[in-house]
């Protein structure tokens, strides 16, 4: 598989999971209503985009009986003056057509992204309360800061997926991103790679699947339990500013160390295995050898469970930064207890994805892929940068880490 294809596949999986997850996130759904909605549509005769938007609005009116459209011909002087005023209200410097105002939102131009957003906005206003800024302007009422609809600030039009409100998916994205980066962290991966390299010799695919799969499953369960325990502890202390500063500082230190490791390897051009904790690594390697050579499969599987627990426990200090940061973000958002299980599981799923890829490639090709060690180094850089950003926000702007849920 080409690198670009792999990147695309990973991105697609992340996006799909994000969207799937967003549908199960605690989004409050307003009861469907039939609010009247007025769209103020500034157009210029002969303008192609205006014609396209008019077709869209006409179709929408046929579907929505409470929708009305008021048109303004921009070629008329008085309408130009109105649009100039309205654009200024929205602090928009582009005064051009088509220009559309609906509720507390406006759109300049018309394309597929605007169509999707406008469509969604109209549907949302039909079902929920909103402020019609244009109506207030026309009746000379004062326009308040709270009248503006900030929803679009959080909307992104993604390829394939379509329009996504980041407030609905932000914690899901954080879980996916941090879990994925954490999974690439090479702290505990060497044991999986070593174990795979040993069992590959047997050419017994069933044995390889069982041993590798159980190692990953046990690692996932262990990590899940550790994160839930940590989250419960964090939840008790999260309100204390001092605790936030401590966690933020730890994130900054861990992030700084990760970036240092990456830069050191790059500068010295010695990208390989660091000779540290050799005694522990030798013990793990001996244990893995015992498992690979065990004639009894049940005994080997018991050994795998033990090995996975030991190696993850021993390497916990090495890879604790991102789980720590993630549980703190969950706690800051008041996501604890049962409500947090989905997010932690999403984190773990993406934590295990790179291991699954390395394992899958190994099973099918009977070789250990160099990809594993290569991407691991970049995990130091990306993970470090993320930890520094979140650590900084946790200390100085914790409110930014409070993702609101509609």
């Amino acid at each position, binding site marked *: 598989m080409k690198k670009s294809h792999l990147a695309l596949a990973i991105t697609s999986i992340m996006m799909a999971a994000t969207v799937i997850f967003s549908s199960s996130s605690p989004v409050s759904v307003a009861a469907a209503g039939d609010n009247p909605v007025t769209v103020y549509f500034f157009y210029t005769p002969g303008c192609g985009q205006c014609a396209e938007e008019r077709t869209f609005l006409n179709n929408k009116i046929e579907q929505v009986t409470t929708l009305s459209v008021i048109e303004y011909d921009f070629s008329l002087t008085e309408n130009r003056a109105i649009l100039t005023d309205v654009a200024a209200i929205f602090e928009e410097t582009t005064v051009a057509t088509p220009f559309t105002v609906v509720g507390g939102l406006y759109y300049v131009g018309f394309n597929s992204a605007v169509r999707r957003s406008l469509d969604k906005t109209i549907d949302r206003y039909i079902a929920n309360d909103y402020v019609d800024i244009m109506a207030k302007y026309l009746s000379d009422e004062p326009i308040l800061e709270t009248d503006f609809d900030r929803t679009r600030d959080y909307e992104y039009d993604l390829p394939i997926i379509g329009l996504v409100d980041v407030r609905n998916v932000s914690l899901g994205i954080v879980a996916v991103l941090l879990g994925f980066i954490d999974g690439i962290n090479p702290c505990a991966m*060497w*044991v999986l790679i070593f174990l795979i390299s040993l069992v590959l010799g047997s050419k017994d695919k069933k044995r390889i699947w069982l041993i590798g799969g159980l190692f990953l499953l046990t690692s996932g369960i262990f990590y899940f339990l550790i994160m839930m325990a940590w989250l419960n502890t964090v939840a008790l202390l999260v309100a204390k500013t001092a605790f936030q500063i401590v966690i933020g500082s730890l994130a900054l230190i861990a992030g700084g160390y990760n970036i240092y490791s990456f830069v050191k390897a790059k500068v*010295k051009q*010695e990208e*390989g*295995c660091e000779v540290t904790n050799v005694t522990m690594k030798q013990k*793990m*390697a001996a244990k893995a050898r015992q498992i690979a050579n065990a004639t009894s499969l049940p005994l080997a599987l018991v050994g795998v469970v033990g090995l996975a627990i030991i190696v993850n426990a021993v390497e916990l200090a090495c890879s604790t930064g991102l789980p720590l940061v993630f549980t703190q973000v969950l706690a800051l958002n008041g996501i604890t207890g049962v409500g947090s299980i989905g997010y932690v599981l999403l984190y773990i799923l993406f934590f295990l994805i790179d291991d699954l890829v390395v394992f899958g490639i190994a099973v099918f090709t009977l070789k250990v892929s160099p990809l594993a*060690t290569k991407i691991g180094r970049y995990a130091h850089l990306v993970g470090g940068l993320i930890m520094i950003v979140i650590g900084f926000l946790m200390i100085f702007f914790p409110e930014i880490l409070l993702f609101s849920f509609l």
Partner: protein
Amino acid sequence: MKKIMLITAVWCPSCLIMRPRYQAYVQKHLEFSFEEVDFDDNPSLVKKLSVAKTLPVAIIYTGEREVVRLIGELSAQNVEEKLSTI
């Protein structure tokens, strides 16, 4: 006679990746021989060779003389380029 002495450890994924690359090089360049030394099993030799903080280490000898030392993970092309100058 030229020799590649590769110092590896079982716990080192980069060693797993580099071993076949050096072996492939030796198969193509018959003037080279290949010897692998386990880092954990040969502490005194490793110490004598001053293997520092990163594995694998490939020490290239011409006769008895060490001429080049390649450390860590390198692409097959990189190995080819660095060894072609010897």
